[in-house]
């Protein structure tokens, strides 16, 4: 089961990503997680819905595009700076 995550959450991480606990950027669209008038959860509400159906493409810590590998029963997303993210 893929957990429903907030747009910028880093989920389960390995390597340096474990230190990147602050979600600066939306994992779906890559925009800052706190833009707009409302709180992040409103601004990126649709992104949050999409992240229930697809892996994050952007590192929540640095906005780098991640290398994402989807397999039939799982996925991994790797930031070159912050390490591996998995569900």
């Amino acid at each position, binding site marked *: *089961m*893929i957990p429903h995550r907030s747009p910028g959450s880093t989920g389960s991480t390995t390597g340096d990503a474990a230190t990147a606990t602050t979600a600066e950027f939306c994992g779906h*669209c*890559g925009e800052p997680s706190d833009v707009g008038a409302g709180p992040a959860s409103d601004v990126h509400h649709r992104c949050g819905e999409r992240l*229930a*159906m*697809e*892996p994050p*493409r*952007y590192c929540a810590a640095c906005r780098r*595009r*991640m*290398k*994402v*590998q*989807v*397999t*039939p*029963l*799982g*996925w991994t997303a790797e930031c070159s700076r912050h390490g591996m993210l998995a569900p």
Partner: protein
Amino acid sequence: MTMQPELQANPGPILETARNQVLEQGIGLSESQLLEILRLPDRDLPAALQLAHEVRLRHCGEDVEVEGIISIKTGGCPEDCHFCSQSGLFDSPVRGVWLDIPELVKAAKETAATGATEFCIVAAVRGPDIKLMNQIKFAIDRINEAVDINIACSLGMLTQRQVDQLASWGVHRYNHNLETARSYFPEVVTTHSYEERLDTCNMVKDAGMELCCGALIGMGESLEQRAELAAQLAALEPHEVPLNFLNPRPGTPLENQGIMDGKDALRAIAAFRLAMPRTVLRYAGGRELTLGDLGTKAGLMGGINAVIVGNYLTTLGRPADADLNLLVELNMPIKELQKTL
């Protein structure tokens, strides 16, 4: 939206025609007849799905074929298929990545453990080069050493030599989609032609591999073009038709295309089954968005007889358990490996 409205007592005349022609005689509907199915009012949709289900049971049997798919080479494709996040020509967030063989074998084992009989290896390429072909050969050998599962491939357009190689390596089925109707194809792809796709499909069939040739609907095509596509697929006589529904991807030319209506999607499922009574008709990408849980069930009771289990190439599917439990709930047995050979 209610996906399963009440069954009407007096369905339209096209359904009576279809009952006689498709169910009783096993002859698929023509393009003009398919258009009538696609134009059926909502009140006739349950009857169309029920008929499609009867056709599927009579001509295909009760088994459901389960498959897993995986990308061995993701992103960076030189083609411009307007729906695809893996094209290197669009500003898509999908990065290029290669899967190593141990991970591929691990995924094949996990897929087989779900009861799946097919494992399809996909690469985002125009066609395979020598490096990719060598990797595919190596991957096939390693998977065959590790697990009993039929191996399918989807590597773009092939040369005759490549077709022959894949067949000799034991590739069970080859996927190459038409995607859309010939008349709409230039609106969706400009870097290769419909005829080039047909050439690969025909070579695959001639070489004795099973042809998997699918559709992606909801890209802005008309109902006429949807009927045209179903008829063109039927004429090709593929062993399997994976039916995809557009999931608009960020950065692609179709990113702002709306998600197609669920009832239109169900009408399409019924129409494709009535066009191809004996073909494996597989749920593929986008059904989670277009149909949701209720629609998924309606489609399985409306002509679908195969599913992709778990995730797709770049997006996530329903959890494998959800689909497998649904098959149990519907008393639909999973096709066993020996029945596929």
